[in-house]
C-alpha cells in the first residue's frame, strides 16, 4: 500500500484502439510523486494519446489507470494538463485568460486576483498581463498556458510538446520554468520528441508504435545503448551516395540523417574525422561543419528502432 501511495501515476496494461488500429499496447507506466518523467517518441507513437487518457480527455480501451490512487476522471482536481495546441484565447488579455481558469476552478474573485497575480509573476508575464494574447510571442503564450497548471493543489502536471515551435531562446527560458516547477510533491510528465528536453527529466520513457521500448534515467539510457561518440557532420549536399559513404565509418550502427547532414556513430573519433573529410572531398561533397558529440536520446531512440524520432524532410 505504501508503495502505491508513493506513485502519482500507475497504469496497468493500458491499451487504446481506434477501430482496428492499436495506438497503445499494454502500457505499464509508473511515475512517482515528485518525479519528472519525460515520455519521448516520434509523431504517431501514442504519447499524446497516453497523455490525453491520463488527463481524462480520452478513455482507454482496456487496462487500469490510477492517478494518486484514483481513476483519472476522479483525479481532475489534482491533475493539470497543457495540451499541445495554443488553447489560450487571443481575444482576452493574459490576466483575463487566467481569471477564466481561476473561475472554472471555483476561486472567488478576490482570491483569484491574488493567485493570478502570483502566477503571472512566476511565468514573467506580469508586465504584459493586460495585453491581449494575440500580441504575445509564441514563448509568452506557452508560459501563460503553463501558468494554468500552477494553481494551488495540482499535483500531477502533464505537458504535451510544450516547446514545439518555440525559438531556441524562448525554449531555454521555458525549460528553465519547467525545472522550477519540480518539487517533492508534484509529479511532472513531459511529452516530447526532443532529446534535449527529455534530458532534463529524472527518468525517460522511449515510446514507439504504442509500446514503451526503454525506460531509465537519461544518462543510463545513453550508457546502456553502447554508443560512445557521435560525429555530427553538416554537408554541402545530401544524397544516397554520401550516406553510403559515411556508413562505412559508422561502426556502431547505421548513419542517421539530420536536417543539415548526418550523424556517424564511431568509437575512434580522432582517427575517423580526417578520413571522413577526405572521403567526402573525393566525391565532391564539402563537410561544412563537423562536431564531436556525446550520444543524445535521439541517437538512443534511433539505435533501438532504426528510425529517427523526428522526421527529416
Amino acid at each position: 500500500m505504501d508503495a502505491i501511495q508513493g506513485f502519482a501515476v500507475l497504469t496497468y496494461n493500458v491499451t487504446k484502439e481506434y477501430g482496428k488500429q492499436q495506438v497503445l499496447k499494454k502500457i505499464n507506466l509508473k511515475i512517482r510523486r515528485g518525479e519528472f518523467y519525460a515520455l519521448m517518441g516520434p509523431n504517431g507513437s501514442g504519447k499524446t494519446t497516453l497523455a490525453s487518457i491520463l488527463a481524462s480527455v480520452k478513455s482507454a480501451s482496456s487496462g487500469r489507470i490510477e492517478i494518486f490512487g484514483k481513476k483519472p476522471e476522479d483525479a481532475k482536481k489534482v491533475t493539470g494538463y497543457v495540451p499541445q495546441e495554443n488553447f489560450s484565447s487571443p481575444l482576452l488579455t493574459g490576466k483575463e485568460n487566467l481569471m477564466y481558469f481561476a473561475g472554472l476552478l471555483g476561486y472567488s474573485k478576490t482570491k483569484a486576483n491574488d493567485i493570478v497575480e502570483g502566477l503571472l509573476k512566476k511565468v514573467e508575464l506580469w508586465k504584459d498581463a493586460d495585453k491581449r494574447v494575440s500580441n504575445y510571442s509564441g514563448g509568452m503564450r506557452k508560459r501563460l498556458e503553463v501558468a494554468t497548471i500552477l494553481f494551488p493543489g495540482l499535483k500531477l502536471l502533464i505537458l504535451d510538446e510544450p516547446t514545439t515551435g518555440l525559438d531556441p531562446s524562448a525554449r531555454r527560458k521555458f525549460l528553465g520554468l519547467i525545472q522550477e516547477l519540480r518539487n517533492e510533491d508534484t509529479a511532472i510528465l513531459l511529452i516530447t520528441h526532443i532529446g534535449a528536453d527529455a534530458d532534463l527529466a529524472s527518468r525517460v520513457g522511449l515510446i514507439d508504435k504504442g509500446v514503451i521500448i526503454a525506460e531509465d534515467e537519461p544518462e543510463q539510457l545513453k550508457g546502456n545503448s553502447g554508443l560512445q561518440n557521435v560525429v555530427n557532420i553538416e554537408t554541402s549536399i545530401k544524397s544516397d551516395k554520401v550516406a553510403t559513404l559515411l556508413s562505412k565509418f559508422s561502426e556502431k550502427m547505421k548513419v542517421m540523417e539530420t536536417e543539415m547532414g548526418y550523424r556517424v556513430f564511431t568509437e575512434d573519433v580522432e582517427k575517423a574525422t580526417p578520413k571522413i573529410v577526405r572521403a567526402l572531398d573525393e566525391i565532391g561533397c564539402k563537410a561544412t561543419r563537423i562536431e564531436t558529440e556525446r550520444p543524445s536520446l535521439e541517437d538512443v531512440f534511433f539505435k533501438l528502432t532504426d528510425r529517427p524520432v523526428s522526421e527529416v524532410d
Partner: protein
Amino acid sequence: MGQIVATWKKTIKEFLRQKTVLFWTIGWPIIWVLIGSFSFTGDAPADIVAYTRGAISISMMVFGLMTAGMANIPGNIAQDRERGLLTKVMSMPVSPWRDYAGRILALLAFSVFSAMLVIAVGFVCGAKFFFTWTDFAASLVFILLIFVASAGIGMLIGTFVKHVHGAIMSGVGLTVVSAALSGVMTPYAYLPSVLQDFARIYPISSANSAITFLMVGEEYAGYNPLTLSQIFFTAFLALLLFVIGLIAYSRFCWKKD
C-alpha cells in the same frame, strides 16, 4: 456559479472583441434598417412609413438574434475546440452543463444588447410602434423564443461542424436562407403558399410575425399568428430545438473518444 460566471465573462468578451461578430450581429442588421427605412418606403403616407420602419426594425432585430444564435455560438464553440480549449476544459473539474449555461447566458446578454441597438437605430430613423404594455411583455416572450430556437440550432451546428469557418459559414448561411424563405426578411404576403406554411411552422419566423403583429399590427405581419395552436407549436418547437442543442453539445462536444 463560479464556472458559469467565468464562462459567461470569457464568452461575452470574445463576442464584443470580434469585429466579424459585431458586424454580422449588429452592423449588418443596422445597415438594413437604414436601407429599408429610406429606400423602400416611397411616397407612402407618413404614418404608414413610420410603421413600415417599425416592422423593418423588428425583422432586422430578429435577424440579428438569429445570427447571434446560429453563427456566433457555433463559431465560438468551434474556435474553442480547434484551439484545444475544450480539451483543456475537459481535463478540468468542469461540468458541461455549467459551460453550456455560461455560453448561453453570454449569448443572451449579447443578443439583448444587439436587439436594443437595432431597435434604437430604428427609432432614430423614425420607426413607430403601436402597442400596449401587455403586447410589449408578450413580445419579449416571443423574443426569448427566437433566442432559444436560434441558440439550439447554433449549438447543433457548433457540435457537428468541426471547423471554425465551416461552423460560422453554416450558421450565416442557414440564417440568411431561412430568414429569406420564412418571411423574416421578406413580407409574408409575398411568399408562395408553400413558404407561407413554412413561415408558420418555423418557430423563428412565427415568433417574428407574432412580435410584428403585437407591436405594429396585422397588416404588417401579413396574418394573425396569435392563434392558440400556433403559439403552442412555436413555443414547443423553439424549446425542443434548445433541448436538442443542449443534449447534443453536452453529449458529443464533451465526449471522450
